[in-house]
């Protein structure tokens, strides 16, 4: 009797877990006149769930706005959401399902580069375009010609922090603490090191951890002994919050520098006051006064009652870039859609003007934000080589209506990274 009830409990639990996985299946996208089905996959319940949820919010908000404005060429957009729990093998599985079973027109996702790298081959094999909103590791788009992104890449992001450390913080000695198993973190470490040494700096200590580690005092003690001016920690918020916390408990005063992987409301819960005075590079700032950004921030806040982080903004932009490309391609044929995405030029996104280069990456400036009292405060903007800063903000107000692509995309061609519309281009304050 007792064993029967235990067995029942077990069976019920199993049923629950299957029930969760079955949501969202059993649909079929029809190519032709019907609705346009887009797949989104991300980490909704795993260790980096804040990334997946923010991006999903941004994607869904953009899809709703597009539908309210009449859809894409009169066709409604429907987004099928899949949870990969932040695990690369599950990311590959859910993308297989999206492209083979749901027959989506395109896939949006992932945030973490390791997950995008695992899933991208599935989209590439099926010849379905995939746009990663925010995977910054350069290898992601090298998987194939159907893989794109709407964010900058790590060589630039690592470069930005190295320049900021050397030029703005006048740092000579840097220590690095990176996530050994994350492609994102290993990439940033490499690019930061190269750039920081190129600027005359010195890497005085290098330590690593793996995702899920809970105690960083050993690594931080060794770093403290090397007496660095700054500590570069290109990890994800879950560990970084704790690293910041433990660094203060060890009496470390050097500021921690990070990347967009820090951007999560959860960072503040984990790190609290210990985070004050640290800096990160990111895709946009909610403080940006540009009307397009302020409208996005206000709309997002009224919809989700939280400020949009950069991942939400990139999710929003990835959906809008895709909608724009579908309009220009005149449909959802995989190859035509791929070519249309590749031709995206000067698309006015909330994270800046988006142009896709020949490597299917977006060329955009980065912002440096200072962490202060549970807020990311805008500090400076750093532009890629060859891109001059505009007199005002890069983004112009969003184009009304997605039915008219010309309004959103200027047919500008020529230079690989044409400057956004500028009045009097002043020299960048912090760029070489």
């Amino acid at each position: 009797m007792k064993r029967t009830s235990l067995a029942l409990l077990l069976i019920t639990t199993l049923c629950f877990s299957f029930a969760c996985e079955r949501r969202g299946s059993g649909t079929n996208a029809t190519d032709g006149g019907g609705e346009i089905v887009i797949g989104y996959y991300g980490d909704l319940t795993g260790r980096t769930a804040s990334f997946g949820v923010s991006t999903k919010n941004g994607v869904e908000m953009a899809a709703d706005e597009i539908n309210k404005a009449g859809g894409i060429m009169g066709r409604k957009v429907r987004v099928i959401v899949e949870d990969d729990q932040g695990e690369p093998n599950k990311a590959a599985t859910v993308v297989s399902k999206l492209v083979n079973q749901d027959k989506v027109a395109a896939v949006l996702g992932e945030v973490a580069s390791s997950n995008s790298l695992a899933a991208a081959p599935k989209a590439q094999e099926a010849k379905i375009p995939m746009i990663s909103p925010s995977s910054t590791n350069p290898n992601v788009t090298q998987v194939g010609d159907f893989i794109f992104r709407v964010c900058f890449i790590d060589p630039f992001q690592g470069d930005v922090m190295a320049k900021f450390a050397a030029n703005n913080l006048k740092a000579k000695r840097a220590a690095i603490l990176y996530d050994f198993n994350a492609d994102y973190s290993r990439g940033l470490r490499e690019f930061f090191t190269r750039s920081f040494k190129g600027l005359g700096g010195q890497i005085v200590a290098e330590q690593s951890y793996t995702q899920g580690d809970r105690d960083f005092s050993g690594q931080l003690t060794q770093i403290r002994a090397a007496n660095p001016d700054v500590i570069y920690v290109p990890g994800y918020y879950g560990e970084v919050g704790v690293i910041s916390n433990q660094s203060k408990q060890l009496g470390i005063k050097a500021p921690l520098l990070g990347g967009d992987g820090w951007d999560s409301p959860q960072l503040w819960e984990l790190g609290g006051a210990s985070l004050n005075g640290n800096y990160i590079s990111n895709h946009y700032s909610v403080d940006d006064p540009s009307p397009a950004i302020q409208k996005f921030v206000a709309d997002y806040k009224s919809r989700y009652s939280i400020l949009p982080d950069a991942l939400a903004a990139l999710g929003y932009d990835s959906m809008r870039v895709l909608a724009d490309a579908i309009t220009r391609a005149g449909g959802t044929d995989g190859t035509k859609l791929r070519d249309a995405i590749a031709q995206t030029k000067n698309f006015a996104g909330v994270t800046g003007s988006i142009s896709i280069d020949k490597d299917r990456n977006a060329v955009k400036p980065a912002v440096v934000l200072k962490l202060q009292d549970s807020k990311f405060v805008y500090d400076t903007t750093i532009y890629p080589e060859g891109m001059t800063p505009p007199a005002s903000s890069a983004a112009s107000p969003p184009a009304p209506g997605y039915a008219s692509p010309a309004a959103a995309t200027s047919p500008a061609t020529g230079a690989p990274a044409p400057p956004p519309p500028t009045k009097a281009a002043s020299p960048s304050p912090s760029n070489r």
Partner: protein
Amino acid sequence: MDTFVQQLINGLNVGAIYALIALGYTMVYGILRLINFAHGDVYMVGAFAGFYIALYAGFAAGASLGTLILVLLGAMIIAAVVGMIIERFAYRPVRKYSRMTTLIMAIGVSLLIENLFVAQIGATPRAFPDFLGSQSQAPYRLFGNAAISKAQIVIFLVSIALMLLLQWIVFKTKVGTAMRAVSFNLNSAKLMGINTDAIISLTFAIGSALAAAGGVLTAQYNPNIDPLMGILTGLKAFVAAVLGGIGNIPGAVLGGLLIGAAETLVVGYGHHIGIASTYRDAVAFAILILVLLLRPSGLLGSTVQEKV
């Protein structure tokens, strides 16, 4: 020198937590010859119990050492009840079968607890409130650069107090005498009029409460808690129990401290002998293999053959 001392403080700090968990492994093994693999998950349940007590009682606002003690006691009581429920409904029914059945049951219970938590609250890490304010406070300087934070001091003091309390219960009270009697021979103890079921239940309760204390204390140093936090920590605590001599209470404490110190020293100095800091998790298991090969009874375990 100050760096070495700092690494030792860090290591013993982690080790104290391993020791608290290892005590539960070793006590249950001593009495039932059962490796309770769900014990690491009880540690996790303890941390979450503390988290939800703090959340619903609104303790996070008026955070202080006093509220930490209240949260700690609450979490220990909840975990003790969870431990007794596990024993009553999972282990007791199969106790009469072979030891392998109980072991498989333990693994099943462990997976069940983890997956119930993931299904209910998700695997996203939660932030445990900082009761001691050590996030914003500079640590106490010892000498040179070596320093100790408020959280570390509290972890050391509370775990030492709990270990002394356990020692007192086991060796100075009637219940403790009964526990030792049951661990010598369950059937003889029964013949002496000892309510063995009650004593086994109590052993699970005490072990679980200690693990919960470990969960809440570690969250003061590392506020990141999630439903899978007990897996690796639990396994390392198990290694600590084996290293000290499974079934031996001082051995569990010694083993815990040694594993903690070994781990941190590998991070700090491993690269001098060609071991990267990413091998920290492997170290505990390398120690397990060495102990089983060279001294299966552990550092303090008795080598007396067990009569069956």
